[in-house]
């Protein structure tokens, strides 16, 4: 079986972006069930993209996708999974810890854990 890394799918990037948009629209409409569904879809697509970027040697894009995945998990109320992903990123990229902490601080501010009301 070939081990040649495949190019990162443009279609996958597009579908992921649109799922993030649909999650944001659901948030605006105060529809938590739909927001969770779309942000979870986006999160898992970001994790697939992160893996594909890593294989393609695009480490910065891989890191960005993993941060985005954690952000989407958080907005889908998967707080613990999101924290784990961000903690892991901090360990792997210690120089980026301040930026990663900023993402977490922003999520905690705009989407507080245990707050069932959606951001306004």
């Amino acid at each position: 079986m070939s081990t040649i890394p495949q190019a990162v799918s443009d279609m996958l990037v597009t579908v992921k972006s649109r799922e993030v948009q649909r999650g944001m629209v659901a948030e605006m409409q105060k529809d938590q069930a739909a927001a969770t569904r779309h942000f979870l879809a986006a999160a898992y697509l970001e994790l697939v993209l992160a893996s594909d970027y890593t294989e393609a040697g695009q480490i910065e894009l891989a890191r960005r996708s993993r941060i985005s995945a954690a952000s989407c998990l958080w907005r889908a109320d998967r707080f613990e999974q999101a924290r784990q992903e961000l903690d892991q990123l901090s360990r792997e990229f210690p120089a980026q810890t301040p930026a990663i902490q900023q993402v977490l601080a922003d999520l905690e501010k705009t989407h507080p854990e245990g707050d069932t009301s959606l951001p306004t």
Partner: protein
Amino acid sequence: MEVASHLVELSTIHPRLLWDDIVAAAVAVLEQNNAPPPFRLELTIKDLPTYDDETLLLTILPDGVSPAHVTRLRRTYETSRLVEMAAIAVAGLAIFHAAHLEIRDIALHGSRADYLVGKAGHLLEIGGRSRRGDFGTAWREKWEHLKEHQGGGFFLCVVEFETPSGRLAFQS
């Protein structure tokens, strides 16, 4: 420079994103001034290497946007949301016509910006305001915030829908 542009073209010029609600919101907001279509909106353009003129006059055509969709959005969203979405539509047209770039992705949460533009992935922050009087403050706050937190280049587009007018600038 004056450019006539159909709102529905946004889904062609920036095909990676969803535009249906944004386009309908733009019609909802632009119609509020009781101006008949096409809607005219002048943007000041600053420091875009790809654009020589100081202004971009957009003549915005709402053809193809369902009136029922516009009515539904008016019932669904608060005015401030509609204005923000309308500003995204204007920014999408301006980025294409003045910077010749595609909006390619949503920016990371916490990045202080909304979208990523072009293959270089420059940040694009967009702001929309209902009143002309709020434009200056919105522009200054967003510009300073981006300059403070971003090392790379970024675009900022703020639109006010009272006149209506706006500004698009690039910081390299």
